[in-house]
């Protein structure tokens, strides 16, 4: 056992990762709800309790302004002040923020509360878009890494080395089929989400495809990286688990990012699944436009490019 360092690392590493991340990330209660105040603020203040963190003020705005702020994920709650009453818009996609906000808003006088995008606060509507990312990561990473390692074990890469094939030919030939399967997986998962779980598809197909494409590149990159670092299929499985687990924990898929400590937020900020989740939820549920999603898209494309290019270079070195 002491000679099998990778298994040893897995035996101790996974419990430590799970304990640390579950311990710190497993917070469903959002203590500070990012809130926007739209319209003139009354002399006595907006009347919100201490749980609301005012992150944006739009004194000249109206209800449409508030809706845009929520759609673009600039805030989870928007307060639209008026002379007679206060309209409160709540982003139903941020499930835990919304639940926390609704509890606190119950005490606000003359307030009309409306939950947008997910009025029934359905867990499935929010979770299914994220699960699609998890499925792609899980299946894509395993099929790519195991497939490549299996071929190496069978000696086909050594065979390719004495064939008039460029390393690029082999890389494209190996990765393209897995990419196509993963892309089909994504389409099927989205269709299943819409048909079986009533997940609305309100946004742009092109934007969704852009997020999907970038994420699939990242997943394929992770798959090739795992295969490059693994001598056997068993090792590939171990390493894949170590890559998948942290992404599930800190990507906002299960636990709200806003409730996490800063360190975990930073770890999440370099995980492709984090940005894919934001993209999926925002496009599918909120019909957010590119103008609101350029940052997560650029981050996802950047991370995917780094992972994919590094993995291809390492794979190429192995084949050359």
């Amino acid at each position, binding site marked *: 056992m002491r000679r099998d360092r990778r298994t040893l690392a897995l035996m101790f590493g996974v419990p430590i990762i799970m304990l640390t991340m579950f311990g710190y990330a497993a917070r469903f209660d959002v203590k500070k709800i990012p809130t926007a105040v739209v319209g003139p603020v009354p002399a006595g203040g907006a009347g919100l309790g201490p749980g609301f963190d005012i992150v944006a003020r739009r004194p000249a705005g109206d209800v449409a302004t508030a809706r845009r702020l929520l759609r673009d994920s600039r805030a989870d709650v928007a307060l639209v002040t008026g002379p007679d009453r206060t309209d409160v818009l709540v982003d139903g996609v941020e499930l835990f923020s919304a639940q926390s906000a609704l509890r606190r808003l119950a005490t606000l006088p003359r307030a009309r509360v409306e939950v947008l995008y997910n009025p029934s606060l359905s867990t499935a509507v929010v979770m299914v878009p994220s699960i699609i990312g998890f499925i792609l990561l899980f299946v894509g990473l395993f099929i790519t890494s195991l497939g490549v390692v299996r071929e190496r*074990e069978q*000696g086909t890469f050594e*065979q390719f*080395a*004495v064939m008039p*094939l460029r390393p690029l030919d082999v890389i494209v030939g190996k990765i393209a089929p897995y990419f196509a399967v993963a892309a089909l997986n994504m389409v099927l998962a989205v269709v299943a989400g819409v048909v079986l779980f009533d997940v609305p598809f309100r946004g742009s197909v092109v934007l969704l495809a852009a997020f999907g494409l970038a994420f699939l590149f990242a997943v394929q990159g992770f798959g090739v990286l795992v295969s490059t670092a693994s001598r056997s299929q068993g090792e590939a499985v171990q390493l894949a688990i170590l890559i998948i687990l942290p992404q599930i924990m800190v990507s906002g898929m299960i636990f709200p990012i806003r409730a996490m400590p800063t360190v975990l937020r930073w770890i999440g900020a370099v995980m492709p699944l984090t940005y894919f989740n934001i993209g999926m939820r925002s496009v599918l549920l909120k019909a957010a436009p590119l103008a609101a999603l350029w940052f997560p898209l650029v981050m996802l494309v950047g991370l995917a490019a780094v992972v994919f290019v590094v993995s291809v270079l390492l794979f190429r070195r192995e084949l050359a």
Partner: protein
Amino acid sequence: MSWGAERVVVRFGATTALDGVSLAVTPGRVHAVVGGDGSGKSTLLRLLAGVLREDGGTVRRPPPHRIGFVSAGGGVVPDLTVAENVEFVAHAHRLSGWRDRAGDLLQRSGLAAFGDRLAGHLSGGQHRKLAGTMALLPGPELLILDEVTTGLDPDSRLEIGRLVAGAAASGTAVVTATAYLDEAERAEEVLLLHDGRVLAAGSPRSIIAAVPGCIDDLDAPDDPDRAWRRGRRWRQWRPAGDRRSGGAMTLEDAAIVSELAAGGGAR
């Protein structure tokens, strides 16, 4: 044009897998590389094939597409049929008019009737014969076979032997690592490796002739450190003995004696 290795050194970390090994490979001849486990046979073959790089010495080899290489793993794609595997090689090499040659090679290797069978469903012998067929299809200048007959039945070994002999007859230089010394005895040149070094090299006849002393065929050995079993009887090396007084010596005897002399111990 001849190929080969000249005083090559290959290291894996702190382990020296090949230490000053030379092998001259001549077109139209079969060169057998023999030696125990870990002697460096596969390393030398992979070096000749170009899938490994030398840390010292020089290697002369044809361009990659003129090399046919069957690795110990086989290199056959199990999810493709026999015909698809062959077709893949033909397309990779951009061969034209390859179907007749492929048909001939499959016929000679006894695989003509299995074109539609998945390579992953072939027997061990069929698998190796398919790998050999794929390596031979482009008509390589240098054919490298890494223990392709290990574990096969005598018929399969014979069929592979015919394929190899046919390739050599058409001018291909063949280098084959083998665990069977009777196979090596049929090669024109033999290289005997031990712990990454050359113990003996030359024709089987010259290697046998270079062994000092003689071999006795006994019911029971009187010098167990220099004796090994063959069937129910014992072979025993007498370093100072007169060759004429002992029994006929085989390449297997010569290989064992060479390893004994190098400090490899008795079997």
